[in-house]
């Protein structure tokens, strides 16, 4: 379609690749905003998630709470904060941290919870301390899910920072907001393509990280096929695995 060739022509134009409004600058800004958001969100969400997963406590409170966080419309939040705090990076930063928290927290607690209770129990039995269990057993085994949570948070943050260009900020969203009223569809499409490509690259990177952090021993245990094998008898009452105290 014609708009695509225009968009690629836009992308090919060297004029769009230099200066303070050029693609590299906007890309860096976007990455910077995204990184900052993730760092803040991880710093808040990860400890909370790990704690819930490890102790099994607080789930009843935090899980519905993160559900409610998901319901908060980011655009409204950005505007609300912008009206309250004025323009600047803070309003969208706060709004996007809120957006990023639910997947990060959920990834962390469900990751820890997904670790076989029998393994955790065995670790305690041989003399791991509480924090030993968390850091040497639960976290390594939960890492793929933890990274998975951060991964989807990151995708959403990259996509949503474009909405925040509603305010006088840089980032790739600038190309979109500046294009909309000026009928510059080539730029609109080009901007979208840039965001998508960025998201894909980052996503691919995370996929790689996720693979790298999956413990080798866990990978080794995965079988591809559903066998006819009937399992040997196992215990039926795992209730004693419920941690008596954390």
């Amino acid at each position: 379609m014609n708009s695509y060739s225009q968009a690629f022509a836009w992308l090919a134009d060297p004029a769009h690749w230099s200066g303070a409004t050029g693609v590299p600058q906007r890309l860096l800004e976007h990455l910077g905003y995204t990184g900052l958001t993730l760092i803040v969100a991880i710093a808040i969400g990860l400890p909370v998630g790990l704690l819930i997963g490890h102790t099994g406590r607080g789930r009843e409170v935090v899980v519905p709470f993160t559900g409610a966080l998901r319901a908060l419309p980011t655009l409204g939040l950005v505007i609300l904060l912008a009206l309250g705090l004025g323009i600047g990076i803070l309003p969208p930063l706060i709004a996007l941290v809120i957006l990023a928290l639910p997947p990060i927290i959920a990834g962390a607690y469900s990751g820890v919870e997904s670790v076989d209770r029998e393994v955790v129990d065995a670790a305690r039995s041989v003399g791991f301390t509480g924090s030993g269990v968390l850091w040497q057993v639960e976290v390594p085994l939960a890492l793929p899910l933890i990274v998975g949570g951060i991964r989807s948070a990151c995708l959403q943050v990259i996509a949503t920072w474009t909405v925040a260009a509603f305010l006088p900020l840089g980032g790739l969203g600038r190309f979109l907001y500046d294009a909309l009223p000026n009928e510059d569809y080539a730029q609109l499409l080009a901007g979208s393509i840039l965001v998508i490509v960025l998201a894909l690259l980052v996503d691919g990177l995370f996929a790689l990280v996720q693979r790298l952090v999956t413990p080798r021993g866990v990978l080794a245990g995965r079988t591809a096929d559903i066998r006819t094998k009937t399992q040997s008898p196992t215990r039926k009452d795992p209730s004693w695995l419920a941690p008596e105290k954390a």
Partner: protein
Amino acid sequence: MIEFRAVTKRFPDGTLAVDELDLVIPPRQVTVFVGSSGSGKTTVLRMINRMVDPTAGTILIDGDDIATREPVALRRSIGYVMQNSGLLPHRTVVDNIATVPFLRGEKKKDARARARELMTVVGLDASLADRYPAQLSGGQQQRVGVARGLAVDPNILLMDEPFGAVDPLVRVELQTELKRLQRELDKTVVFVTHDIDEAFLLGDQVVLFKPGGTVAQRGTPSELLEHPADDFVAEFIEAGRPRSILR
């Protein structure tokens, strides 16, 4: 010697798992707990290394009340082997065996060297050292579990249905191996099973639990066999016998 004095365990949900248990487990012998599902065998076993704390009563090891011992340190001094081995899936075989030495802060190199020795002791081929648990057969995993239990040369070894999940042929092999090991190492072993035949095969002393967490009878295998204390004991032993023409 491990001694239970009027030990009761009631779980927070109200289940009475162990009821006023008095029991002496003699040193350097194999004591087997046997009984049907839910009779409290695991709970009693786990009270020895303070994975479960009693609601009432005292437990003494060599005369010392374990309630005064720090649970983590206590656990590191007691070997523990469980069904499905409970190995750490993200650590290799040697590292699994050396878990407790690592925890105690021993040098990695020394701990690994000792772990390799233990592999020979429990009859594991040295070539398996760098595999992950998932790459082993069930029987091999159980051997790793036993090796891990022995890694700190504990006086006490707790085994909770360690051979419950393996093939009958492999099971026979592991039982024979355990008998050999016990002759060599001479530990205080507490072994849980619900197979009366296994209990009689391995136990110097057998403790038969009744549902509700009480002891139905305690004694040597021949005592139980020849003088069952009551109908429950007789019936339980009977169920374990082959009912086919094998008998």
